Every structure is written in C-alpha cells, then in structure tokens.
C-alpha cells in the first residue's frame, strides 16, 4: 500500500504506485513532493481508487468555537466568493474594512486547525485578542520568543518560514494577513512547505513594485474579491482630510543644508551619475563601499537630510499642530528614530520604535486605546494593520515616498470616530529634497485630490 508522510516541509510517498506529484529522491530512495500538493495528491489517489495510508497530519486538538461575528454585507459577499473558490484565494480590501472578521468567520465555519500568519509581533497580539473576543478561545502564538501551538495559532512570517519543518503538518487552514509579504523569495516557501488545503490571503495592497505578486495565485489562489476605498468610503469608513504644511529652514540650517548637498551633487555631476530610481541609488550605495569619495558624498547627503528632518522650525510647527488638535487622539509618524526620541523628550510624548520593550509597547497602546494617552510618536512599527482605534489626527514628519506605506498610514486614521473626519497633516521642509519625496507620493492614487474633493 502507498504510504504518505510528512518530512520536514515536504511529503514522502513510498509504494509501488506512481503519482503525477512525486519526484524520485535518490538520497532517500522514495518519492518526494512539496507539502502544498497534499490536497492534490489525496484527490488523485481517491479518484484513481488507489489504496493508501496517510500519516501526514499531526494536528493539535480541536476546541469548540463560539462565534459572535456578524458580517457586514460586503464582508459576507467576500467570504462567499472565497468559499466558492474552493476555499482558496485572496481578498483585497482597504485597511479598516474588517478583514480580520472575515477570516475569523471562515475559521468558525471550517472548525479546523488554523494558522494565521502576520508581519509583526504587534499583530500577533492583536489577532490573539480578536480570536478571544470573537471565537471565545485562546489562540497559540509562534514568534517573538513564544512557541505555543493550539487549534488556532498566530505566527509571524519569519517564524512560519523558519519553523516550516515543524509546523507544516499541523494546520488545515492558513490565513496570510498582509499577503503581499508572502511573495518574497523566502516567505513564499511558507506556502510551499505547509500542507493546509484551505488558504486565504488578505491585503489592502496586492500589487508589489517588484511584480512578484504574480506568483501568489499558484501558492494560495487568485483574487476572489476586491473592493477599493472609494467604493466603501462614506458608507463604512470615515473620510479624511489631507493637508500639507511647508516649513522653511532657519538661515543657519539652510546654509548647512546647501553646503552639504552641494558636496553630494558636485560628486554626482563630476562622475555623471544619475539617481532616478531606487535601483540607481542601491548601485550608488554599492560604489560607496569601494570608493572613498563616493562615501564622503553619501555622508554629506545624509547630514543635509538630517538637518532638513530635524529642523527646529518643523518642531515648532509640530507644537502648533499639537496645540490645535489638543483634544484629539493623535499619531505622529517619522521614519527616523532619532527624531522620534527628540520629539518624545521635547513634548514628553510616549514613543514607540523597534527598540521599545514589548511590554511597554503593549502598555502604551493600551493606554492610548483607553484615552489615558492622547498622542503617540512612532517610527515604522505601527505601519501595518495594527489597530489604533479612534485616532483622528495623523502628523507625518518625514517619509520615503513609497505608495503602499502611504495608503497604509492613511488607513490607520480611517477608523470611524462618531461622524468625525480624520485629519492627516504632512509637515515638509520647503526647498529640500523632501518636497520631491512627498510630491512623488501624492501623485499616486488615493492621494490628496480625491480627499480634497471630499472636503
């Protein structure tokens, strides 16, 4: 009889029967196939009436789920499309459209061992909380030093990838939150090394700049449902107002900026280097490893940018903005940790960066949720999907110009606050490179135009 079992992220098949899936592995002397073909192998064996013994699954025990989830009409529609797509596929919904609830509803219907894969540790906490609230069970967690496998388990992409050998045969259903991450060369192995026949991807931003999202259909199925912000705004999401405040540098700052930038520009001109894309820039960084002067030019540029980012004038404008929105919950974003701490020290605002201890981060977010803290200043950690309920003001102190980041940041402010419109204010230095960055950003969709119109 054909015997089938799980071996470190792959399936081994031993027996005299050939199947279209096995590849002969001379190292161990039997057929081997990717774990993702588990469902297909079984279907083939059943259809061909081939007797087999299946030792693949090692599932954690089931628990009774008590679902309290009531889906909105578009969420129901999304779920039913997914079920019609053989319980595989991607749902594209804007941030705050309640993707979490659709996935949890799917788990409660399937009543099976489920793994939820998320990009950050914060999201592990958030999903665990939702599982507790909506399904009445405690979820396990893998990642950030925890390793606790339960019927419903939440893991980071990193841990799911690194521990595929151990976890690959423990779940029948996988939910990929922020599924665009899955397309990266290493993370895509998660999809390949897990047996789970049922798969769901969730994202607000399906497309990747590197086009690798084209690999996703093979791994988890096609897009089965897609709706964008415009279709939902007004009805389910609160619209926001975007505003840009230009700030000039102080004379001494401007002088320092010009000097340093000149060093950089002169070097580029002299060497006829043109930096247009991110790739050009990467190539330039590579040169700085070998070329002394290139490195000096780069350092000069960094100093100039630092002046622009940390401009005193900008901090004054920030103070005014904070005064103006005193009563509202506010998030301040900046990419630079130094600036986060400078702002935190100056205004005595709690800060969250990658360096913030996990406990403290949890406490700060909790207090913010309760309203004990009104403002948080943060670098990138809150970027994706983390719930910061009813924050109604966002202040951007700097940025990189990436489209996805922009949408996600806006999304964070899209929580419904009793009929109130959210406000997003970007504070940019006048006459510096930064203007270029944020102009590039604004050109992409969901930018200022659509929201100015909403004003």
């Amino acid at each position, binding site marked *: 009889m054909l015997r089938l079992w799980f071996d470190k992220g*792959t399936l081994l098949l031993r027996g005299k029967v050939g199947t279209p899936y096995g590849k002969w592995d001379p190292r161990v002397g039997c057929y081997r196939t990717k774990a993702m073909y588990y469902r297909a192998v079984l279907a083939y064996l059943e259809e061909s009436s081939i007797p087999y013994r299946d030792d693949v699954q090692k599932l954690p025990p089931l628990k009774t789920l008590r679902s309290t989830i009531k889906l909105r009409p578009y969420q129901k529609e999304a779920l039913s499309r997914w079920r019609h797509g053989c319980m595989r596929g991607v749902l594209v919904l804007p941030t705050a459209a309640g993707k979490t609830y659709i996935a949890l509803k799917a788990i409660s219907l399937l009543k099976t061992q489920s793994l939820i894969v998320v990009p950050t540790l914060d999201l592990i906490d958030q999903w665990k909380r939702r599982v507790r609230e909506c399904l009445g069970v405690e979820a396990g967690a893998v990642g950030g030093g925890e390793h606790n496998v339960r019927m419903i388990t939440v893991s980071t992409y990193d841990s799911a990838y690194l521990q595929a050998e151990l976890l690959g045969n423990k779940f029948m259903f996988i939910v990929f939150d922020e599924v665009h991450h899955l397309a990266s060369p290493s993370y895509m192995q998660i999809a390949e090394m897990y047996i789970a026949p049922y798969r769901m991807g969730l994202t607000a931003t399906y497309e990747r700049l590197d086009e690798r999202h084209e690999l996703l259909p093979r791994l988890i199925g096609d897009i089965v449902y897609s709706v964008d912000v415009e279709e939902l705004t007004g009805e389910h999401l609160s619209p926001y107002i975007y505003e840009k405040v230009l700030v000039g540098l102080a004379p001494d700052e401007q002088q320092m900026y010009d000097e340093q930038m000149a060093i950089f520009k002169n070097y580029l001109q002299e060497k006829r280097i043109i930096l247009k894309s991110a790739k050009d820039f990467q190539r330039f960084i590579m040169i700085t490893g070998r070329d002394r002067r290139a490195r000096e030019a780069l350092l000069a540029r960094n100093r100039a940018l630092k002046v622009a980012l940390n401009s005193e004038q900008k901090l004054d404008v920030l103070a005014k903005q904070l005064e103006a929105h005193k009563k509202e919950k506010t998030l301040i974003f900046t990419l630079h940790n130094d600036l986060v701490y400078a702002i935190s020290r100056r*205004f*005595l605002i709690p800060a969250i960066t990658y360096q913030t201890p996990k406990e403290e981060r949890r406490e700060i977010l909790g207090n913010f949720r309760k309203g004990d803290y009104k403002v948080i200043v943060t670098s990138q950690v809150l970027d994706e999907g983390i719930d910061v309920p009813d924050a109604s003001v966002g202040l951007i102190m700097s940025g990189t110009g990436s489209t996805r980041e922009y949408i996600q940041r806006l999304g964070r402010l899209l929580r419904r606050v009793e009929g109130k419109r959210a406000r997003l204010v970007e504070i940019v230095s006048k006459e510096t490179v930064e203007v270029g960055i944020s102009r590039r950003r604004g050109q992409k969709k969901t930018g200022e135009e659509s929201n100015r119109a909403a004003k």
Partner: protein
Amino acid sequence: MLPSNLLAVWKRKGVIQPRYAKLSKANLEVANSLIEAYNRHLGEKKKVLKEFIVELEDSGQDYHFVRGLSFLLDRRSMFSCNENVNPVDLRRKIFRLTGKLGLATTPEQRKRIIENVAAELKIPVEMLEENLYSDLESELILEKFEPLSPQALLERYNLSMTQTLLFGATEMDFTASANWQKIFFVIKRLGLIYDAYKDGGFWVKIDGPASLFKLTRRYGTAMAKLLPVIVANSKWRVEAKILWKYTNEICDFKIESWKHQQLLGSHQPAISFDSVVEEDFATRFQALEAGWRLRREPEPVLAGKRVIIPDFSFEREGVRLYMEIVGFWTTEYLLRKIEKLKNLDVRMLVAVNENLACERLSNLGKNTQLNILYYRKRIPLAPIIRYLQEAFREVYSKQTDFLKELPVTLTEPFVEFEEFAARIGVSAEAARAALTEKTPDNYKLLANGLIRKEKLEQIRKRIDEQTGRSGRLPLSEVAKIIEKEGIDVTSVIEAIGYKIIWHGINIEKAEVLRLKNKTS
C-alpha cells in the same frame, strides 16, 4: 556570523570568495586599535564608543572591515542600563501626567511636568532627564568586555564572513580528516540531508529536503552552522554553490585547509575522546603492541545510503576491522544496529556496556552471531585480541584460498609481494604464502618477491663481467646495475652467488664478494 550587509566579497567569472582579512601588519593594527577602544571605553556609553568607530571608518579604513570587527566585539561585550532608576517606570509616570495635564508644548509646561515627577520620585531633575531613555541601545553602558588577541579577532572575522556567505548556499560538499561522529551528529540535528560518496577520499554532499524541487537558500544557515565543526580538523575541503541574491547568479565557492586554515584560525582540539572508556581502551591497547594499528574515529563506512562511523579501526597488512562502543542501549537499538551491519562487507565488533542496559540482556535472545562483547567497567583486551587474530586468520585464509584458485601467470621480470597483494586486494602475507607455494618454474623466489630466472642470469653475467677475476666490486657499483632494473639490491645479491662485505657502517665502503660455490 555577520549581518549580510557587512559581507565583502570578490566575485569573478562565477567564482566567489569573501574578501578575507590577511593577517597583515596593517590589519592587525586595525584589529588591535578596536580591541583597545573597547577596553578603553569600559564604563562609557555605547554611543561614545560608536563615535570612535565611525571616526576610524572615516579615517580611510574600509568600513565593511571595521564594522565587521566591531560587530564581533559587540558580541563579546555586555552593555547594561543604569540600575538606580528604572527608565520604564520613569516614563510611565511622566506620560501619565502629560496625559492629564496636557502635552509639553511650551517650555514652562515641560518644566512643570518634569519637576513634578522628579519631586515625586525624590530625585534631582538632571537625573531624571539623564535617565529618561537610558535603556536605549545607544545609551547603554559598556560594562564588561572579553578581550582577545588581534590575530584571533581577524580569524574569527574570516570565519564569520565565510559563514555569512554560506547563508546563500544551495548545496555544499566537503571532506574532513576526522571528527566524523560530531559532523554527522550536527548534520542530523540541523535537519539536513546527506549523500556520502567516494572521490579520492570520503566526501559528503549536503542539502535539505526541499532542495529536490528547486535551488533554495533555505538550508544555507544550517550549512553555515556546520562549517566550524568541519574546519576544526587538520585537513578539510569545502565546496559550495552560492546563490548570490543581488545578481541572482550561482557562484562557486571553494576553501581548503592548506590555503585557508591560517586565515580561519586553527581551533584544533587534540584528538578528543568521547569518554574515559574509549581513552582508557586506546591507551591499554596501544601499550600491548599487538601488531595492529589502532585509529580513533576512522573514515566512515558507506553502507548503501547510510553511513556508519565506527569509534575505532584496527589495521594490519591491509586487513581492517572496526569497533563501536555502545553506551546506553535498548534491545531495539542493538537489533537495529545489527540489521544495519548485517548486509555490510565489513567486520564490526560491538562493545556493549552491561551496566548501561535499559532492558535485560536476555531480551536480546540468541539473535546475535554478531560480535558483541559485553563489558562492565573497562573493555577487556584479551577477547579483542583473540577476535582480531581469528578474524585476521580468517581473512588471511580466505585470501590464500582465493589465491590458490587464482591461476598465477606472471610476465614481469620482477614481482614484489606487497605490490602484487595490493594489485589483487589481499594481504602481503597471503600473497607471499601463495606465491611461495606456487612459484612458477621460470621464476626464482626471493625474500620480498619473485624474479624471472632469465633476468637473474642476465644480472649475474653483467656483474661477473665487472668483477672479473678479483671477484670483488663496490656495493655502489652493483647497486647501479641492479637498481636500473627496478629491483631491490640486497634481495638479489645472494641469489646470484654474492655476499655483501661491510667495512664499517659506511655504505660507500661496502663491497660485494663472489662466493666460491655458485648456487645457481
């Protein structure tokens, strides 16, 4: 291992190498100045130390190199936070207060909040300001640093770079001179798959389960972890395919002990014994001088797809036997071992500790014609010697039997026993016995081989001519004539009716003298 952005490489025509730091005077100086900097900055903030390092980078040093070294030194350091004030508590108090009183958007408001909290904690305002973020990485204090020599630092740097390069490996082949037990133990623990083969020496190719379907860097980290165990040997060679992620090309990477050992450092522990039992056995056996060469952890034995790594091998004249020492065991374990050995064309003695049995011995039944030797405290020598001799005799007689069957047809003018034995794969003694018994008529038996009679006659004639009537000739002259034929002098001299006369120990002065009664 270093972060991949600190890995510096040379890449040309599909070959890749880390840019190893030579143990040159200049590099040793950089290493030394860094080590001293860490020593000097004990008790200071990390950011002060890092400023020094940035200065070093900016003063013309390769920043990959400087940062790489500093990364390794960080790992030998302990940075800690001032323990008098808990910054997390401090912040909580301040943020709660700002939550109540409003943000510090003016200097007055800020001062009010800070003073308030300082008063509550009964600490000076300056201390509060100082400690507000004293748990940040850059604010931590260098408390301990475990120094090392500049040379050791460079060696570690080179080893770390090699490991970092291997992160991108899709497969790796290697050979090593010893340490196999440990190597295979690590391979298994890391979840790698091995494929052992012979190519000059004993080689092992490793990759992982999913490597079957496509090239993957997934197992690179595991290969990097294996590397230190391999290069801890006196001789080794490692070859790997690196998938270079920046250009997506496959590059060859090779290192070998004679070239690279110096760069990576020689962390060679003396032959280590797993247990006192083994060490004790080896010492006593060698003292016996029983004519067997004992080797600790010999080259592994290929058993089909599997590999067996015996603890000892005994060698004598091309006959080789193995011994494995078993500590804790169960019947099932022993039976599995026996099964593994059964179809194998090697002789293995298994020494089993009776005291460490997890089940009763009787459970094993009579299943074991395999050579199991029970011991309690020390491994007894007598039964082993007996076993070895029996086995030797058996192998030996098998070989002589084999030779008896073998029709001996010789064509060469001179046949040496040892060379003949090696050619057909038997022991020299067996070859000697067989050829002595079955010397073909046209050959004459010598001490170390057979010589064709015509050849012998030819040699004698030539020497007779040279010696003339005196019957004497310097040995060196004779040697010239005989060794031209590729034959050892001393064994032939007597066969042609001469003997060597020694005048002292100086071989130059020795002569050969024709005997009166010619024997042939």
